[in-house]
């Protein structure tokens, strides 16, 4: 999501310029601007001066956009084979190293893709490549002044992006010590730098050679742009841009040449006049707020770097795996052998104790059965004697372990035995009462019956 407020920063050799834009419903509005001179030969003061400029423009922090110096950036047009939009960046990412003029293995890049050509489907891209070191340096500079780097791009691309409308524009940026010519339109990208500073160009009226040199370079650029559908318009920007120079160039070249001002800039509402020295700061701020996001520079790690990183990751992962295995092996020697032996002895002891407990439980059960008290026998004998009717004589009374009790005797008749059975059946001492036999017998001259009765002693 684009920030509501963006700070455009232009760092030059002699000054720091800041433009603050705020987003409103009707577009971007100028909220403040400041230009603070940078003491010559004291680059370490740059963060301090930048901070001072921000405060002068009415801001102390926030997202900032910055264009890298011309020498740190290269732009060129690349023609990619037909590809869907989401594949453009990966393809360019592979091409960056090939097109980068910088020997450093790491670089930054941004791009602007044109719509695919209708006849072939090829995609024309403006590829901007920068030194990674320059990108890092710019970020550090902004951060040291309390600003957060939000958008970093190339100067010429940012200027052309802002100025180019229906008609192509050749931007002439006049600064202390140099003059830059930039033309970015369609598939064309031209960038030249002349060692003509603003001080020399101020003498262009008196020294025709100076004007001639600049005009000659501009003519070459215009010739290179001859394939464009319309001749480019010349726009002067920068701290050294002057009406007089614009008039001289227009007269010399025969084309329109004007100074940039905020009042004529579409998409930017400026309540206060904003001169050409602020063009670059306004351009990066406007491009950051409304321009294509792909133009922002991002880090590109070349394949060799990525490969070495991948290898490092793989080596790290394998090393970690090896450490895990070594730890497992160390632990896999098992718990302390003494501990294992102790546990095994414990297991044997527990098993032995369990067997001993089972054996003792069986013994106890059997002993309890054997040593059961025979309380019922005397009661049964006493009860038998009480319940036996007259005419019944008991001759033996026996009871053994785990068996039935037996009573034998004689009676006057079988009826007496029946009475005895009935009487015993009413007693709780005799369960499962059974008459084993009754038979006739003689005792002297008397005829009697002999009987045997068995019963189950009641459970104890």
């Amino acid at each position, binding site marked *: 999501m684009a920030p509501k407020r963006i700070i455009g920063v232009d760092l030059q050799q002699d000054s720091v310029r800041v433009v603050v834009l705020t987003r409103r419903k009707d577009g971007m509005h100028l909220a403040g601007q400041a230009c603070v001179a940078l003491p010559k030969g004291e680059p370490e003061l740059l963060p301090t001066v930048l901070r001072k400029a921000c405060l002068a423009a009415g801001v102390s922090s926030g997202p900032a956009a910055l264009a890298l110096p011309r020498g740190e950036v290269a732009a060129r047009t690349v023609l990619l084979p037909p590809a869907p939009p989401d594949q453009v960046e990966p393809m360019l990412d592979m091409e960056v190293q090939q097109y980068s003029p910088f020997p450093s293995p790491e670089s930054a890049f941004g791009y602007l893709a044109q719509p695919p050509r209708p006849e072939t489907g090829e995609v024309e891209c403006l590829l901007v490549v920068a030194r990674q070191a320059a990108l890092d340096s710019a970020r550090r500079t902004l951060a040291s002044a309390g600003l957060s780097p939000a958008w970093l791009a190339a100067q010429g691309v940012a200027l052309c992006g802002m100025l180019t409308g229906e008609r192509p524009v050749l931007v002439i940026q006049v600064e202390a010590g140099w003059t830059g010519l930039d033309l970015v339109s369609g598939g064309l990208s031209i960038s030249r730098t002349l060692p003509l500073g603003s001080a020399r160009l101020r003498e262009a009226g008196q020294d025709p050679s100076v004007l001639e040199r600049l005009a000659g370079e501009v003519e070459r650029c215009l010739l290179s742009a001859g394939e464009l559908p319309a001749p480019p318009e010349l726009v002067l920007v920068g701290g050294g841009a002057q009406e007089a120079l614009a008039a001289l160039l227009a007269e010399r070249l025969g084309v329109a040449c004007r100074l940039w001002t905020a009042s004529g800039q579409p998409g930017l509402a400026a309540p206060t006049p904003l001169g050409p020295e602020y063009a670059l700061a306004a351009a990066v701020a406007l491009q950051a707020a409304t321009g294509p996001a792909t133009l922002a520079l991002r880090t590109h790690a070349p394949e060799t770097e990525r*490969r070495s990183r991948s290898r490092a990751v793989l080596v790290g992962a394998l090393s970690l795996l090896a450490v895990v295995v070594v730890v*497992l092996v160390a632990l896999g020697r098992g718990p302390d052998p003494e501990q*294992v032996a102790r546990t095994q002895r414990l297991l044997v*002891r527990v098993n032995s104790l369990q067997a001993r407990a089972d054996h003792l439980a069986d013994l106890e059960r059997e002993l309890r059965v054997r*040593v059961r008290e025979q309380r019922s026998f005397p009661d049964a*004998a006493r009860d038998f004697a009480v319940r036996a009717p007259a005419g019944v004589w008991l*001759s033996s009374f026996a009871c053994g*372990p785990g068996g039935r009790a037996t009573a034998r005797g004689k009676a006057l008749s079988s009826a007496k035995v029946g009475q005895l059975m009935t009487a015993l059946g009413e007693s709780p001492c005799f369960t499962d009462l059974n008459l084993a036999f009754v038979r006739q017998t003689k005792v002297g001259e008397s005829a009697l019956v002999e009987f045997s009765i068995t019963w189950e002693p009641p459970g104890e």
Partner: protein
Amino acid sequence: MRLLTRREQVLIGLCALVLAAVGLPQASRLWSAPAPAGAATLSRRQAELERRVGSLQDSVAALTTTREQTVPRALALVQRAAAKAGAQVELARPLRDMRTGALTRHAVQFTVTGSFPQVVDLLAALASEKTSLVVERVEISAADEASDRVQAQLRVAGYEPAPTPAQQSRRSP
């Protein structure tokens, strides 16, 4: 985009195979090793079993009578009960030891005479004694046709655990 050459890929694959071959068995050994919690459980179980064995040993000892203890205890028991009931102990005869299951029985056979109520009282007195001896068998019969005296045959027995084969083999030499 190929980040690694074929040779590097093969080498990494080999490394992974070797590491897996060395590491997996060790890991499985580690996982299958008895956990410290197992040793703690065993210790607890050992303590429980030791308590249970101690309790069972006490119970078994209370129910046990050795061969040497049986005869004097049985004599004292029956004489005391007979004196209490007014019966007479006519005969006391130790019987041969007999193995019954896991136990060995030591028994003494008594012949007691008296009236039927006296014999019944004697049996009641024996039954009321708290002892590890037991009256296993009683046979009451008339002593003679002319009187009301009866004769009782009593078998008083005590039990002890039979020696295990291991104990027997230790005793034999």
